[in-house]
């Protein structure tokens, strides 16, 4: 048992457990908090795959930004409706069948694909490489992303504007 194996299984248990809690918890607010745990677990997986920068982005943007926005939306809508948001699930059997079918197909695909390869050694500094290539090779999509984020946030604040 190397440190990588122990870390992988720990993160896998955290990720799968919190993901299951997200879709099974009755309380919507608890669902969001479990999603935060799942997102932090994903960040841990990223760090294990030598993508420390992506792990940081994941924690900052997802666990920071998305969770804040979702909690904000829940608080606002609860105030508008004036009652607590509980959520019921429906079509549990159909959901289980479809999800299990997709999972079985994906697993058999992974088995047949022959991707049981070990991890190659990474010599270069990934974070440095990402920084350089974002501002050279991928400069145009990077700037377009900024425009997209601005447009998205403007549209969001327009949709959710206070009523006149």
């Amino acid at each position, binding site marked *: 048992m190397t440190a990588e194996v122990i870390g*992988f299984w720990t993160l896998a248990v955290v990720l799968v457990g919190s993901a299951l809690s997200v879709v099974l918890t009755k309380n919507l607010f608890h669902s969001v908090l479990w999603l935060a745990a799942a997102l932090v677990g994903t960040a841990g997986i990223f760090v294990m795959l030598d993508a420390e920068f992506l792990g940081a982005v994941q924690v900052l943007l997802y666990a920071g930004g998305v969770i804040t926005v979702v909690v904000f939306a829940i608080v606002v809508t609860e105030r508008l*409706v004036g009652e607590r948001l509980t959520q019921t699930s429906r079509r549990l059997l159909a959901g289980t069948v479809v999800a299990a079918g997709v999972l079985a197909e994906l697993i058999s695909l*992974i088995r047949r694909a022959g991707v049981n390869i070990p991890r190659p050694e990474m010599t270069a500094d990934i974070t440095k490489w990402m920084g350089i290539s974002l501002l050279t090779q991928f400069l145009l999509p990077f700037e377009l992303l900024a425009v997209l984020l601005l447009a998205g946030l403007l549209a969001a604040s327009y949709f959710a504007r206070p009523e006149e």
Partner: protein
Amino acid sequence: MPLSAYLALAALVFSIGLFGVITRRNTVGILLGIELMLNAVNINFVAFSRFHGTAVGMIFTLFAICITVAEVALGLALVILLFRMRRTATADHIDWLKG
């Protein structure tokens, strides 16, 4: 761990997210399921990129994460708007386009 372990983990999280999208009735709950599915795809991207030995897939993941943030902000703005107009959080009640 081999590449297939990461792919299997991502497949599991993807299926759980799909289950959530199918079974949840609340619009915010459906959005949370979509978030889980997007996360699973990001894990796949990073794992393939790392095991291939190049970091281009990680750049793609960076873009995917940022676009997801914009998507969530817009989706929740629409949820708030629907709440104002219809006073409902259930996806089944949003049926204005029903013929």
